[in-house]
């Protein structure tokens, strides 16, 4: 039997390899370098690796071939398992940016007095002598950097995956490190470990559904590749039930990852328990990757069968938006509140996903749903990452104070921190002059254009409900006197400060002049088959 060597387009895929290489190098660093050196080497390695990958992405993007009249760019790579098209490289860039933000936040050591936000010795049981020794001797887990890089690798492959198995592999590669990272908090370790276990169990459960869906769809179409699946659907030869159940299972796996209702139950607990730096990274980057994958799956693989999955998407979107915004009102913990707001945003993103129309229905230069969703992902990611980064600042000697009662009067105590957080909240509420508004506008426009009036009405309703709890926090910070203990803010080092500053700047700039980024998302073009 002849073995044909597979062609791998290294020249186009080298950003992926850089990330992978740096991750492996990080593991080696952990194994061989003496402890005092590890922190600096790991952070520098991770940071430079991500920067190199980002540069590489830009270079690869500029060299992509144009197809048609600029409607799409790029080509399939790795024997058709990866699609290197416009949306892929756009999302790679976004994920890498969030990865950079994540590295900066992970590396922050000012806030805990010289050690990072991660546990000294994760294996030490909470409350034992071993834990006390680990924390007093200033131990630190620097494995978080290679773990994060593996997660970034998975996140980059996920939206690029052009076939079901690759998608599944990417899903697992991105999820497993995240499960670990969630359990590594230095403070409130039991809560953190509980969050990690919940995420792992529920993630494994939903991955099981995903894999079952992969099997069923393969059974229907006879191939894993999206283009072939699309062909099979168009020819409609197989057992329709097989396709529907498979489609549903695949959707379930993806909905879990983005936190759509009724699969959102893990989100509040995990976001609250994980170290806040991990939450910031996770909330932004995972959604980008998962939505990219969802878009590719539904637009390419199931694209010709829109009318089958759109009603299902309507129901899930409506449910998600309502659950997210209503339940957030009852929250008294900032991280949980932000988690529910994150769920509501997933609902808005789903509203954009279901706004898909064929290009003949759209006017020239009209916003496509792909463009709208990608733009919203950018704006949502930056404002969420910035908001969680600010949450790390409000702390005292006992650790982060995330109970809302401790945030009362923050406006007087630290006007800058309160102002920036208020700005991020306004952006998440979708107030004009912030990027969140333009994102919402784009998403609603594509949904209305596709005729999804009920969904947009519910979206407007849940925006009104959501405005209430965002404004409540702003009011708490500025117009309420501190109750028992006053809020206290710890000054961060330049790492966190830079992340917050960049996020705030992006949120403002994209609110006032979103044109360039919107055009970039438009130029990325459609998915290729």
């Amino acid at each position: 039997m002849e073995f044909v060597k597979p062609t791998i387009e290294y020249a186009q895929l080298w950003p992926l390899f850089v990330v992978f290489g740096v991750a492996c190098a990080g593991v080696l660093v952990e194994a061989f370098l003496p402890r005092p050196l590890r922190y600096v080497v790991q952070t520098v390695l991770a940071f430079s690796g991500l920067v190199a990958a980002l540069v590489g992405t830009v270079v690869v993007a500029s060299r992509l071939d144009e197809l048609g009249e600029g409607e799409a760019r790029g080509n399939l790579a790795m024997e058709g398992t990866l699609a290197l098209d416009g949306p892929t490289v756009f999302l790679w860039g976004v994920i890498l940016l969030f990865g950079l933000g994540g590295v900066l936040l992970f590396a922050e050591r000012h806030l805990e007095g010289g050690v990072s936000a991660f546990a000294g010795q994760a294996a030490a049981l909470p409350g034992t002598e071993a834990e006390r020794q680990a924390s007093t001797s200033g131990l630190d887990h620097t494995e978080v950097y290679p773990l994060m890089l593996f997660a970034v690798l998975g996140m980059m492959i996920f939206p690029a995956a052009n076939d079901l198995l690759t998608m599944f592999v990417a899903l697992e590669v991105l999820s497993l490190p995240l499960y670990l990272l969630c359990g590594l908090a230095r403070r409130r370790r039991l809560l953190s470990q509980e969050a990690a276990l919940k995420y792992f169990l529920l993630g494994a459960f939903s991955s099981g559904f995903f894999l079952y869906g992969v099997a069923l769809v393969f059974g229907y179409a006879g191939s894993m590749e999206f283009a072939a699946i699309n062909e099979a659907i168009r020819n409609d030869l197989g057992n329709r039930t097989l396709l529907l159940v498979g489609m549903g299972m695949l959707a379930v796996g993806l909905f879990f990852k983005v936190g759509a209702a009724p699969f959102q139950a893990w989100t509040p607990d995990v976001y609250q328990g994980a170290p806040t730096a991990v939450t910031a990274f996770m909330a932004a980057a995972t959604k980008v990757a998962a939505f990219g994958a969802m878009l590719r799956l539904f637009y390419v693989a199931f694209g010709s069968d829109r009318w089958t999955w759109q009603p299902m998407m309507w129901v899930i979107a409506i449910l998600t938006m309502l659950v997210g915004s209503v339940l957030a009102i009852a929250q008294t913990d900032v991280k949980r509140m932000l988690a529910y707001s994150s769920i509501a945003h997933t609902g808005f993103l789903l509203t954009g996903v279901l706004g898909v129309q064929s290009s003949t229905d759209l006017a020239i230069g009209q916003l496509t749903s792909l463009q709208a969703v990608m733009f919203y992902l950018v704006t949502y990611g930056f404002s969420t990452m910035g908001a969680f980064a600010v949450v790390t600042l409000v702390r005292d000697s006992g650790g982060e104070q995330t109970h809302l009662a401790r945030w009362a009067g923050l406006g007087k105590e630290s006007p800058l921190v309160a102002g920036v957080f208020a700005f991020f909240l306004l952006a998440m509420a979708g107030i004009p002059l912030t990027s969140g508004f333009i994102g919402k506008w784009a998403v609603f426009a594509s949904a209305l254009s596709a005729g999804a009036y009920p969904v947009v009405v519910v979206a407007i309703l849940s925006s009104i409900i959501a405005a209430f709890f965002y404004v409540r926090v702003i009011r708490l910070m500025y117009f309420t006197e501190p109750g028992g203990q006053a809020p206290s803010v710890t000054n961060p080092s330049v790492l966190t400060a830079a992340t917050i500053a960049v996020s705030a700047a992006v949120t403002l700039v994209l609110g006032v002049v979103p044109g360039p980024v919107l055009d970039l998302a438009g130029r990325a073009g459609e998915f290729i088959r």
Partner: protein
Amino acid sequence: MLAALSVLGGVLLAGDWIVGFLAPVVGEAEHHEPPLPALVITLLVTLVVAVGVAAAWFLVGKRDIPREAPHDVSFATRAARADLYGDAINEGLVVGPGRHVVSGLTTMDRVGVDGAVEGGSSAVGGMANTFRVVQNGFVRSYALSLLVGVLLVLLTLMVVNFS
């Protein structure tokens, strides 16, 4: 004070300025001629006034005015003292019911209209507190909700396709 305003009035009338000051806004109105010439009407009015003054002088003014106002007087005098019951009619017909309407509306505004708004927001808050107990912290419940979600997704897919 009055003198100054009278001068002002004279100035305004001189040149018919006040007659026409609203003209740019509302247009010129036609000036109607009254059935009798204006001067005749003025003379008639002055005559009636003079008769009234004379009557008052002869009927009332020439008599002695008692130190105390007499109590036992005719109905006409009593009516005149009570301003022809003008105030009482006003009070009974307009002011009294008016007060009730006003207080009723003020209450309705606070309780009804505003209440609807505040009630709406309390209802949402109540819903929030009711539903948040679903998030009970047990993985098994979360996994169950995931299962329910799977059924929901499959159901919606099936319904659309087989209807």
